[in-house]
């Protein structure tokens, strides 16, 4: 694969096309996926707090709902960016042939790839931010913390959007997208310290869970409650995964368009 040059207009124009589709049906697009982390937040937060009370996190007692709020932001980021990257990009690549149509315009592969990727990341960012707003309204996350967490939300959205694109480029049938969902997304969503501190897991499983990219994102988004001492490594870990996923995704999709 040869990296073709991108132009800001080209990338924006592709992103803008996806935004126009989203805008035309924004209520349908927006509400159900965002409701998911919000429902988890409310159900588990209010439902389990009376049973659990507090959680021991980094040596301090934290109310359960406050503990899971950053986890739910991360879940919103993961689901929305991954599903847009995986399902929607797969459909645009294989059924609607949107990528092929875009490549008849004066756009390069990199324009179209980045436009799709950034759109997946935008959807993750919207979901993460809206979940964060619900947490703010429920007094579980400070407004200033949410603002300061935005770069992390974007970073996570880019990473999981790229992972989604890699899946879109790697599978041949839309049903096969379920495989990484059950093998990677669901385990990551449950084990990454979203609903409970990872140190309650058996040691070996804890080690594995600590390495999951979502775990690094959840730890970082939980910064208002304190950061683990290895947090700069978590940040680098996320960046490393992001670069790897984006590179692999481009390598898988390119041969589907150019021969």
């Amino acid at each position: 694969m040869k990296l073709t040059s991108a132009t800001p207009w080209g990338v924006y124009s592709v992103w803008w096309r996806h935004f126009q589709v989203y805008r035309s049906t924004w209520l349908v697009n927006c509400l159900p996926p965002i409701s998911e982390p919000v429902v988890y937040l409310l159900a588990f937060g209010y439902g389990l707090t009376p049973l659990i009370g507090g959680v021991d996190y980094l040596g301090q007692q934290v109310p359960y709902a406050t503990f899971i709020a950053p986890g739910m932001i991360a879940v919103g980021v993961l689901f929305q960016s991954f599903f847009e990257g995986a399902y929607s990009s797969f459909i645009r690549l294989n059924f609607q042939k949107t990528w092929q149509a875009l490549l008849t315009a004066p756009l390069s592969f990199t324009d179209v790839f980045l436009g799709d990727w950034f759109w997946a990341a935008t959807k993750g960012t919207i979901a993460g931010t809206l979940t964060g707003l619900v947490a703010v309204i429920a007094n579980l996350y400070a407004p200033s913390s949410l603002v300061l967490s935005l770069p992390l939300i974007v970073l996570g959205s880019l990473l999981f959007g790229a992972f989604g694109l890699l899946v879109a480029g790697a599978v041949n049938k839309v049903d096969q997208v379920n495989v990484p969902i059950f093998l990677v997304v669901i385990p990551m969503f449950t084990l990454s310290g979203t609903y409970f501190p990872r140190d309650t897991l058996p040691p070996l499983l804890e080690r594995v869970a600590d390495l999951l990219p979502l775990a690094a994102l959840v730890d970082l988004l939980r910064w208002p409650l304190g950061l683990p001492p290895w947090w700069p490594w978590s940040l680098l870990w996320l960046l490393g995964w992001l670069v790897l996923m984006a590179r692999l995704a481009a390598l898988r999709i390119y041969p589907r368009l150019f021969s």
Partner: protein
Amino acid sequence: MATEMLNLTAYDLWKQYGDTPVVQGISFTLQPGEIVGLLGPNGAGKTTTVGMLFGTVVPSRGFVQFGPWQMPTQGPQARTQMGIVTQEDNLDPDFTVFKNLTHFAHHYRITGQAAKQRAGELLALVNLSDRAQAQVDELSGGMKRRLVLARALLNQPQLVFLDEPTTGLDPDARQDFWRLVQHLKASGCGILLTTHYMDEAQRLCDRILLLQQGKVIDEGSPEALVERVIGQEVAEVEGIAADLLKTLAQRHGAWCRSFGSGHLVTLPSPTADLLWNAIEAHHPQRLLRRPANLEDVFLRLTGSLLE
């Protein structure tokens, strides 16, 4: 937009997939205002060649020059002056007919009122103004092809690729499409047309490259090709012994070969009538005298029919 008219030149294009050569040494130049046809059966390498010309297929050897740009490295720049109608309909099912055009215009930096105006002009050109607010799925096959063509013209291209644009269309829809192609040519646009319909190639093209197994086996204007390879007239004959017919043909310097359930015989001038009368004298079950066409050319050059 460049004011200078641009030529497209293919230099010795080769494409190989594994050990299978798909395109083998195709070279030609397309001038502004000219319609060049790539005519050949399915699998002759037409679409692969077009892919190399607009930049989605990377040649194994050779290169493509369009004005100052070389493909595929400068594909995006070159495509600012190209319009591409691919074989598959890749219209956007998420948008209405009108928005398919205005939203695609955005990629050419045509936005806002300018995009709406251009979309309106093009819908009028392709006779879809009354379907502007329809969903793409509600369009017939012919309307979809016209909309894809309209989308390819948003940027007022100097060169348009039409890759089997009328495949699957009914005769009326094909005629409509042909009128648009002739209109484009008249406006000075260079057109590269791939087709396996010889009547389409014969009617539209100034020059034809006959393709078989990735190679150009002959080229020229449709009339010149027919005249040079076949002559003016042929006879389709059924119900005469092959040996007898071949003897008659040889005697008149004509070419003869099996064709469907009978034979095809050229009627070379100036002895066309003599040969015709000779065949007629044997009372064949079926006898048809007709002008020679590109199908006959293809049959003579390749031994097989186009479709």
